[in-house]
Structures are given as structure tokens and as C-alpha cells.
């Protein structure tokens, strides 16, 4: 037996109202119901981090959350990072510093780093690496993402300083 629920979720600033089956995961809801396919599924058991989104600003694995639990909540996905249709500083840094290769794990990593830089604008390399342990990347050996994160922190500090 299953139940269906009407939920109202704010995703990247826009509100969506949908009926969902209880067991639909948040990841599948975002990807297939809403069509935001930037969030990816790499394991569906809470290790790889590819499905990471922000729930009320806090990083969470969308494969371990049911869509129905998100009624009334506010989500940010990778599609919500872009600024005026362009890349935000973190995204730009990923391109500049070769922070991605196949790109599959990247969306989730960008969400976790967004949270980190918001909580901690001047992280050490070790702190960046510890944040990244919530993710698995099989391509980059993590050097590119680490450099991109630290470069973004530097950049944000410098423009803040200049302001």
C-alpha cells in the first residue's frame, strides 16, 4: 500500500506544487518530476555525495530523503548557483582550475562547497578536504576541486576587502 501527498517545495527560488508517491526520493523528484537533472545519482546509499542539494541552506543527500518530507521547505540545487545566467565565482574557479573531468560528481561537490564557504569564508586546505570527504570523485584525484575551492575563498575575500 502506498500514499500520495500534495507537496509544495521552493526550489531555487521558485515554488512547485506536486503530488508525490510517498516513496519517491527527493533526488528522483528533483530530476524527473521537476526536470532539474543537474543533481545526479551515483550510489543511492549515502556515500558518493553526487546527489547533494541544500535543504534550507544545509547540505543533504537527496537520495536519503523522501520528496514528501520536503513539503514547505526550500531547496537549492546546482541549477540555482548560476548568477544572471552566468557562472558564479565557485563555478568559474572549477573551470579555471580543472576542478572537474567527467562532471558527474561535480554538482554535489559544488553544493557542499557553497555551504562551506558560506559558513567558513577562509577554510584551510584540510577543512576543504574534510568537506570533500562527503563526496567521491573518481576522475580528478581531488586536486582540482581543492584548488578551485581555495581560489574561490581567496577571490571572495579579495572582493570583500575591496568593497
Amino acid at each position: 500500500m502506498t500514499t500520495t501527498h500534495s507537496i509544495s517545495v521552493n526550489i531555487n527560488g521558485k515554488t512547485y506544487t506536486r503530488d508525490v508517491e510517498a516513496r519517491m526520493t527527493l533526488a528522483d523528484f528533483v530530476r524527473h518530476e521537476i526536470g532539474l537533472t543537474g543533481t545526479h545519482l551515483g550510489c543511492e546509499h549515502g556515500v558518493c555525495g553526487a546527489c547533494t542539494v541544500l535543504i534550507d541552506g544545509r547540505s543533504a543527500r537527496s537520495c536519503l530523503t523522501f520528496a514528501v518530507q520536503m513539503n514547505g521547505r526550500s531547496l537549492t540545487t546546482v541549477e540555482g548557483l548560476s548568477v544572471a545566467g552566468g557562472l558564479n565565482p565557485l563555478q568559474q574557479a572549477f573551470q579555471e582550475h580543472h576542478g572537474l573531468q567527467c562532471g558527474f560528481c561535480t554538482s554535489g561537490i559544488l553544493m557542499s562547497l557553497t555551504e562551506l564557504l558560506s559558513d567558513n569564508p577562509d577554510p584551510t586546505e584540510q577543512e576543504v578536504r574534510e568537506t570533500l570527504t562527503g563526496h567521491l570523485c573518481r576522475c580528478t584525484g581531488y586536486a582540482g576541486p581543492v584548488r578551485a575551492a581555495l581560489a574561490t575563498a581567496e577571490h571572495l575575500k579579495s572582493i570583500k576587502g575591496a568593497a
Partner: protein
Amino acid sequence: MKPAPFEYHAPTSLDEAVALMSTLDNAKAIAGGQSLVAMMNFRYAMPDHLIDLGNVAGLSGLHFDAQTLRIGSMTRQRELEFSAALANKVPLLKAALAHVGHRQTRNRGTLGGSLAHADPAAELPTVCLVLDAEIEIAGANGTRIVPMREFTAGFMTTALGYDEILLAVHIRPWREGHGYSFQEYARRHGDFAVAGAAVLLDANNDGVIERAAVALCGVTDRPIRRDEAEAALVGRHLDDSVIARAASLAGDVEATADIHADATYRRHLARVLTTRALHEASSRMKTRKRETV
């Protein structure tokens, strides 16, 4: 890996939650979901009813009074990690939290969820055990208190009845200035502990140990207190040989063998990690005498 079908319930009061747990067959409470949903995705867990505790009033938060700390079961691990009051009163908890999963895990995971799930390698049940925490449980017949030693009943088994909900954890913090340490060996950062040791120490003004608590995670089918090790510490000054003896006693248990480690290695780790924890706890301990210097 999609979960099997279930009916979802979102009670907003404790009474409602308890009523659902008592009346529905094959019902499971979901707290942070960090363990449960993974099991459901694998279809290892197939509850017919999921009772979401996330909207139940009054289940989360930290309340300090003069002698005890009451932590609501639905308090997110993140809140514990960043609580300055907790860092001050129960520093062992913060030390242990550094090993609990990853940021995403702690943003959603809860204290009660970890205790109820009772993974043998889990850090939070081990901390509760070494603190002699008391577990407050709600059921159809009202609430009851279970000492942590009795709460851990076996491999992923607790004293929780199928129709009961874990309400809160009561902790009596040790004296300010007590020694504490959480030493864990995991294969990678944030992984399940292959083995871990939690130690609390307190000494009198002459440096003689008055109180000692030693617990291990990941070594057997549940977290365990090491009474023999504790007995070998109380009444003594800590030096290398006292520590070595206590650690040896701590590691003398029948240990689990699995794909990650055999029993011999786990026992070895128990001894090594207890040694390190005792050293670290000792160095952190501030006796009243030292404080006045």
C-alpha cells in the same frame, strides 16, 4: 535501488506518533534517515508505514539544568556539533562527532536516530554508554527511563519496543576539567569505525584517579564498557605501565570478524586506541589543584 512501497505519516504530536507506532503493523519511525533510507533503498528494510518524527513538537533541543543535560532525540547532530554549551559541558560528545559521517550526514542525522539504529561501530551510542546516559522512551503505556547499559541489547538491537519512540537522552556531565578522549580508527575519514575508544577520567588533587569510564565501539556486536580496565585505573596514578595494563584489559574481549577486520586486529586496535585515549584524556585533565596554579 528504489524503496518498496509504504504509507507515509507525519504526526505533529508525540501522542499521535505513539498511537501510530502502536496501531500500525510493520511501522518504522524515521528520524534523520541517514541509515534507514539507505536500507530502504536496498530493500533490506521494507516497512509498510513510515512515521516521520520530523514534525513532532518538543522532540529536539538541549536543556541544561543544574546537574543534567536533556537532549531531545530529534536534535540534529549538527546542532550538537556547534553547541558551545555542549562543548563546554560534555566535550567528549563534540570530540566524537568529528568522526560521525560527513557534513551531510550530520545535517540530517539525529542523536536519537543513531541510538535507535544501534550500529555496533556508531560513536554516539558509545559516548552515551561511557557517560552512563539515561534513555527516555515513550510508548502507549507512558514514558520510562532505561540506563544506557541496558539500552544496548545486542547486534543492532535496543531496549526499544516495536511501538516505542526514543524521546530524549539524559546526561550528567562530569566535573568541569575532567579528562576526555575519543580515539577511533577508520579506514577513511568519516567511515564507520573499525574500532574506537571513549575515555573519561577524573582525579583528585593528588592526581589519583577517582573516576574512570572506558567504552569501545566497533569491536563487538554493540558498544561495551570495559569495567576491568576501569577498575585497573581507579585508585592509581596514571603512568605508562598503568595505562598499558588498563588498555590490555580493555582489549581483552571477544571481537567481531568481518570483511574489514578480523578479531585479532580488532583486539589489537582496542588496546592501542585505549592507550592513546588514556594518554590524551590524562593530558586534558585539569585537577582542582592544577586549576589553582
